[in-house]
């Protein structure tokens, strides 16, 4: 049985939604961080699916850009989390309430 592109696109949309909802609902900074990665990987899946459907290598090349940039973002993000962890020994977003929007 072969699956057509629509299934992959749907899966990507579901993953993206899970990531977005998770980012808004969860309070642990590390988990929020993983949710962002989930969203980015959903984007990658969409790109690869479209690249296959359109028979265009450009979409797959774009995925490499996303991967590399996501890696750079992870480095910065973990650095920020570590520096906060050192200062207060926990990474719950609810603890961060000095500045009220």
């Amino acid at each position, binding site marked *: 049985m072969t699956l057509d592109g629509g299934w992959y*696109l749907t899966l990507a949309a579901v993953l*993206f939604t899970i*990531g*977005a909802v998770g*980012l808004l609902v969860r309070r642990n*900074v590390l988990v*929020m*961080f993983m949710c*962002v990665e989930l*969203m*980015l990987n*959903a*984007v990658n899946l*969409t*790109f690869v*699916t*479209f690249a296959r*459907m*359109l028979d*265009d290598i*450009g*979409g797959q*090349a*774009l995925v490499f*850009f*996303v991967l590399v*940039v996501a890696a*750079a*973002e992870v480095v*910065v*993000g973990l*650095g*920020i*989390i570590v*520096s*906060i962890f050192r*200062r*207060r020994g926990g990474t719950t*977003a609810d603890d*961060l309430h*000095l*500045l*009220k*929007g």
Partner: protein
Amino acid sequence: MHAVLAAAQTLKAPDLDYFALAPEIVLTAVLVGILLLDVFVDETRKYLVTQVAGLGLLVSLVPVVALAANGADRSMLGGAYVVDNFALLVKALFLATGYVVLLMSSDYIGEGDYYEGEYSFLLLSSLLGMMVMGSSRDLITIFVALELLSIPAYLLAGWRKRDLRSNEACLKYYLLGVLASAVMLYGMSLIFGATGSTVLRTIGREVGGSVGEEPIVTLGIFFIVVGFAFKVSAVPFHFWAPDTYEGAPTPVTAFLSVASKAAGFVALLQLVYIGFFGREEVWGPLFWVLAALTMTVGNLVALRQTNVVRMLAYSSVAQAGYILVPFAVAGSNPAANATAQTAALVYLLIYAAMNLGAFAIVMAVARKTRSAEISSYGGLFTYAPGLTLLMSVFLFSLAGIPPLAGWFAKLYIFESALDAGTAAAVTLAVVAGLNAVIALFYYSAVAKEMWMRPVPDGDTTPIPVPPALAAALAFTAIVVVAVGVYPQAFARLGDLAQLTLR
């Protein structure tokens, strides 16, 4: 093996126009240079790094001017990277902004217990991203430029490592920034899927044709605009901005609220005018709602602030709303479209000067009072008349009082809305007008505090302003006053830098 070698000989390297890339190449050389310099100079002479960085920014301006004098539009990599008048104008804006921010921060960073060399390095990296953004006419290039300008900015926001508020500012900015990138990327993936291209010009052709009717394109445009709405802190995606602006070091706040926001708008201009222009019934209403909400909410919340930095943060949210007005009305007819583009560009340029100036004053006053509360500005006129006068100039320019530059910027916004002439556009102009009145209240509240109230603690020793900060103040003040008096020259600049459609 032979086959591989034979294939290697037929490989054609992409045509690179090194003259067109010269500003970026110079800036890259400078930022690598200061990183090395930072390693070799000892702790007492770190200010050298900042000086070299500032000099480097001015040197990068030379190829920009040379390219502008040359005048030819240059396009490379299949239209993905274009150097035209628009690109050159925004590059000059970013370099000038970067230089002023560097002037503002040199004493602030040097006196505080911060890492000085790395600061300049990150600032220049972020600027490099903005320079690339000015030329990006391709989804991949826009994405890479956006990340190149954002990632150093996340770090700069958390520069006061030992301050919990700075940590919080940094984390909020980071999480929301990454969320915005992910949303924007998802939109890009949908647009790529529908049009089969990442080059904006091709996308523009496809979106204007039958492909544009598909719902997937609508969804893609929606996601991309929402992603950038986070970047330019448009309501309802603005909630990170006041917190980040208050917690970050003040020069970084000035940088984020001017340069980073301008970069977001530059990307939006390119996406909307080249990529999505055929579907104005999708983005027109979207920008209309964003503009109306951003102006109104930004101004109403700014009214209640007691802290100058927070007030300026909400004011910058509101200012973003004014810049969104031309986007909302651009699609209605060709005349409105041309005015709208000029209006957005001119507003960006003028907003940069007046907002940087206001933040420079906040920094100068905080050197003495160590506070950013509005009440600490009481009686500023009695001991710092020069600063008081300049702050009044910047505040009233932000409010849009003639004959200062901000007035001219607002006038252009109204003109673009009236050129469009539709009921929706005129309504938006009315909303903008009402907001300009509301804004006058909180800007003049600070002015009243400075001119009329007594000094809170009776301490009337003058404020020492270091030369670099004074230079930043002089530069921004001259721009604000000169543009207000001779606006025609500036409008001409905006007209020259029109993006060519299709």
